[in-house]
């Protein structure tokens, strides 16, 4: 089934009769990528699920305020990213004690996580990403895993592309260093 365009989805949501259906289409189209965006930040599935709930309820409440000047998915990403950050800030996160600070037993925790099926190298990469400061982490995730353009990342995070490029460059460098260290 071909995916619906954003315009179709939005116009259905605008109409009260088809709003539920339109929102279901929106979720179908964007929930998975949004989930992975959040999951990569929070690592833990239950945490990601909490943030997903908040994110999509916010999307529903505020969809009428969405300005079609930006892309729908960068708008959803922005909400998701902000929700994930507030989640970490509220100290509810399983893996992060506070923002930019990783639990020391991150590796063991990851090992015990039933929803983590990664190999050693993947675990190492996740650990490396976890050591990055928050903004670098997000830029790296979006660029590396989602292959998003700098412009789209800038829309989500709200910083200039020059800063983003530098952030990505520094993040990639740190991760290389982390991965090559024994």
């Amino acid at each position, binding site marked *: 089934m071909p995916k619906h365009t954003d315009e179709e989805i939005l116009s259905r949501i605008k109409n009260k009769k088809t*709003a*539920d259906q339109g929102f279901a289409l929106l979720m179908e189209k964007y929930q*998975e990528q949004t989930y992975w965006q959040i999951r990569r930040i929070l690592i833990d599935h239950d945490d990601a699920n909490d943030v997903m709930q908040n994110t*999509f309820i916010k999307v529903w409440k505020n969809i009428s305020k969405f300005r079609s000047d930006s892309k729908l998915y960068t708008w959803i990403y922005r909400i998701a990213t902000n929700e994930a950050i507030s989640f970490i800030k509220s100290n509810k996160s399983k893996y992060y004690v506070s923002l930019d600070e990783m639990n020391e037993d991150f590796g063991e925790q990851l090992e015990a996580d039933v929803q983590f099926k990664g190999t050693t*190298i993947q675990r190492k990469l996740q650990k490396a990403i976890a050591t990055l400061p928050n903004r670098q982490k997000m830029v790296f995730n979006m*660029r*590396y895993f989602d292959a998003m353009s700098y412009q789209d990342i800038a829309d989500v995070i709200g910083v200039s592309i*020059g800063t983003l490029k530098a952030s990505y460059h520094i993040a*990639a460098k740190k991760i290389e260093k982390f991965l090559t260290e024994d």
Partner: protein
Amino acid sequence: MKLFGKHIISPDDPVSPLIDKAAGENPFSVPENYFENFQKDIIGKVKHIPQSPKFNIYRWVAFTFVAALITFVSLYIINEYTQSDSENLVYKHELVFNDSNQEVYLETDDVQKTIFIHVNPNMSKEELERLLILFGNNELARENAKTQYTALNCDKIVPDNNGDEDIEEDIETDNNTYSHFRALSYNTGTYAEVFEMVSAEGSLLSWPEDICVERPIMLNAYLGEDFDYKWSTGDETESIRVKETGIFSVTVTAQDNPKEMVSKSILVRYIPVPVLNNEYYFNACVGETVQIDVKQGIDAYKYNWQGVNSTKPMASINQPGKYKVEIQGCRTYLDSFIVIYQHCDLSIPAIISPNNDGFNDAFVVDNLVNYPGTSIEIYNSQKELVFQSEDYQNDWNADGLPDGPYYYLLKFADGISQEGIVNVRRN
């Protein structure tokens, strides 16, 4: 793997090639049917959650007007009952003549409660007379305005005693339906100005003269229900959406009195956020010039390269280094690049086989003879230095070292350096 401080990454590669691709696969999993169930769950929940109402500028402006009206009426009543006639004026006003060809405008000073009416001294008597503001229905206010005006001793105009009547005929004073007073010029209909006692931000009354926007903007001329709107674009709605540079003007006419009209124009400069160059690294051969182009789709931007003396969108670069360019639209944005130079006439082997068969027995860099004084450092995979020379003579053959990958770093006398991996395989 990276041994040296320098990184050479193909500009086409969006991710670092130095990070193991296998690590980039998704290591996480989700419970069975998670997305299906999640969607059902959320759809079930949102059915009971109302959506926030859309921000409605009309409703908001209407609300402001009602609030303003209430404020005004209250003020009016308070004034009527608590103050003497001479104190009835909320604002006093002064007529000021400009030197320039500037059109009429009003300026208020909320602290001193003064209204300055700036007019063009080249205006004809008639124009000025018609412009002479009569504030509200208050005789004293009108008189006050005249006094100020005479005091300025403008020899062009001698207001006559009958001026009041003349003006009254022409000027439709506000009947308190709206909370603002109007100064209207009926002469051309173009340079009338509106003064409002209570701010109605967002409406025509608070338009600035020009504005720079990065997103489309809504120009809202809403004054009330009983007005006709005529835009320079031909639209006849209360507001228009603008997404291009230009001067936009609107004339608002009262439906029950075509003489009561006001015009306003605004210069909108529409300069979107610049699209920055997606590339960061530029690799080039020594002697070549690298062109970095940050040109935008429209001409409204200013460019300022740092370290390159250029204000053009494209810079020609012939030195390695980090380059920055400021792109100025409504705001200033910064884009940055790294330019790396290499000696492209060199041919550096990726593999050598030092088994004395006469082929590839040593790490021979073709054309190295053109670069005397080139130093070399070679490291094994444990990052240990295994060979070093200040003036490399193409003679390293991994003597006494096992097969495997080695890292080399060549430093040329001109400051350029090149690095890479060479595999030693004897069989």
